[in-house]
């Protein structure tokens, strides 16, 4: 792997940019690997990268039915934060946030992590109480989060409407300054490049159609559209399709998959300097470096794999955006899209071993998995390499739905699900 640097740019400028190499290779699949990762999104590629860089396992294939980073990695609104209520969630999301800081240097790839601050608006007394509880819980866990008055919120984000005449007036806000955004595609590409340079095979257009198990029940490999590929360890990181893949091994999951939509506006000059989220009116917004307003909507109410959702969901979100930012009422929206998110009953992810020996699962990130990408890959790699969970992901088991030891972020997440 050639290092990217200002000198590399200068050198290539001198010779017509003929010396750039492919960021990752596209090898033919081998007959057998030590580890197979199903799904080449951010979480899967990060898992492969950390298996190679931290655990010395490089005989890995990452199988992707479509193209690299073409699922939810390329479809989210790139928001990063770690101000979750419960200790378990704080542990895993802040582990990720610490890795975001410095990820561009580690990968030698600009993932454009921008700690521009994530501000969550409170519109009623209940919101105020809940956010203040969050702030105290976060501080006890060493996570920054602070309370802003409406005036301070407007100072932090000038286009915000804090008029008392609004239908849902802003009564304050919780601000996590370390939160922000990153370039979603670059995260997948950076991890892919780093993994490929360490010998990981990234195999696109290769759909897993079955999971093979040996006589003793353990995993022996996967059937794919490009033939059988053997492996003693298989990690499933397939987002909305996780339950479909796990069913192939006979494991039924506590998951339901819903469409989640997002949209972007025409590009305009910098106007939104941070991420603004609102649970009560239900919208979140930031501005990309290209100038587009990036707006996230809610999920549809029904199970679907269609990667599209109802127009009324987007309309509802834009109603909320116009409520928060009346100056955007005449903006044009350029495009919208949907992704399929796998939601658990307690809205916390599952990163764990499974009842099948050699089969591991990293799923259930629901509507907010992007922010966790580095931390999720990091601890999932540990789980696969050591055949036991890292202390950070130890609570995120599959068994918690039987034992009742839930991590009930359902009521604690920033936006309603």
């Amino acid at each position, binding site marked *: 792997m050639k290092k990217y640097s200002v000198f590399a740019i200068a050198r290539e400028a001198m010779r017509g940019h003929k010396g750039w190499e492919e960021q990752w290779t596209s090898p033919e699949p081998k007959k057998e690997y030590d580890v197979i990762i199903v799904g080449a999104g951010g979480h899967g590629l990060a898992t492969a990268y950390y298996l190679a860089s931290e655990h010395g396992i490089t005989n890995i294939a990452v199988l992707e039915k479509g193209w690299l980073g073409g699922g939810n990695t390329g479809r989210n609104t790139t928001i990063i934060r770690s101000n979750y209520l419960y200790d378990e969630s704080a542990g895993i999301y802040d582990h990720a946030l610490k890795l975001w800081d410095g990820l561009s240097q580690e990968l030698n790839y600009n993932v454009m992590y921008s700690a521009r601050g994530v501000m969550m608006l409170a519109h009623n007394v209940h919101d105020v109480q809940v956010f203040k509880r969050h702030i105290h819980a976060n501080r006890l866990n060493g996570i920054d989060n602070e309370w802003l008055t409406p005036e301070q919120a407007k100072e932090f984000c000038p286009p915000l409407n804090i008029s008392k005449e609004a239908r849902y007036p802003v009564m304050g806000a919780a601000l996590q300054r370390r939160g922000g955004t990153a370039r979603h595609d670059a995260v997948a590409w950076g991890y892919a490049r780093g993994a490929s340079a360490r010998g990981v095979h990234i195999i696109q257009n290769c759909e897993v159609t079955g999971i093979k198990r040996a006589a003793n029940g353990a995993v022996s490999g996967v059937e794919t559209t490009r033939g059988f590929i053997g492996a003693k360890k298989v990690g499933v990181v397939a987002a909305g399709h996780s339950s479909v893949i796990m069913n192939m091994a006979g494991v039924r999951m506590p998951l339901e998959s819903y469409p989640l939509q997002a949209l972007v506006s025409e590009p305009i000059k910098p106007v939104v300097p941070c991420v603004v989220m609102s649970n009560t009116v239900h919208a979140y917004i930031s501005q990309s470096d290209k100038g587009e307003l990036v707006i996230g909507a809610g999920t549809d109410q029904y*199970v679907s794999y269609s990667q599209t959702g109802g127009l009324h969901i987007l309309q509802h979100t834009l109603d909320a955006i116009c409520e928060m930012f009346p100056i955007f009422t005449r903006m044009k929206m350029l495009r919208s899209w949907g992704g399929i998110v796998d939601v658990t009953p307690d809205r916390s992810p599952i990163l764990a071993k499974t009842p099948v020996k050699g089969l591991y699962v990293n799923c259930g990130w629901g509507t907010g998995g992007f922010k966790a990408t580095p931390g999720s890959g990091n601890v999932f790699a540990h789980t696969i390499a050591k055949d036991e969970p890292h202390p950070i992901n130890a609570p995120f088991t599959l068994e918690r739905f039987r034992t*009742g030891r839930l991590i009930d972020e359902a009521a604690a997440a920033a936006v309603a699900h």
Partner: protein
Amino acid sequence: MLLIRCPYCEEERPELEFRNAGEAHIARPTNIAAESDDDFEKFFFIRANPKGVIYERWRHIHGCARFFNAVRDTVTDKFVMTYKAGEPKPAKLPGAAK
């Protein structure tokens, strides 16, 4: 937006009048306190989540307010049929290969 046929009102109405109520044909245990942890997990948390034909409950909340069942393809979001609550799971779907 989906167009959903309510089997009680006997007409297609926009999705906004309806509330999805999750997977259909999950029988509530008659003696829930006696359920084992495994069975309770299956009843309460485990879902089919199929890519393809799903059997699900809907409620015509802004219409007749009644629950009913529907068969839908989760890839195309097209409804195959709807039928009244309490009716058995259809053995054969209309339009399905013989």
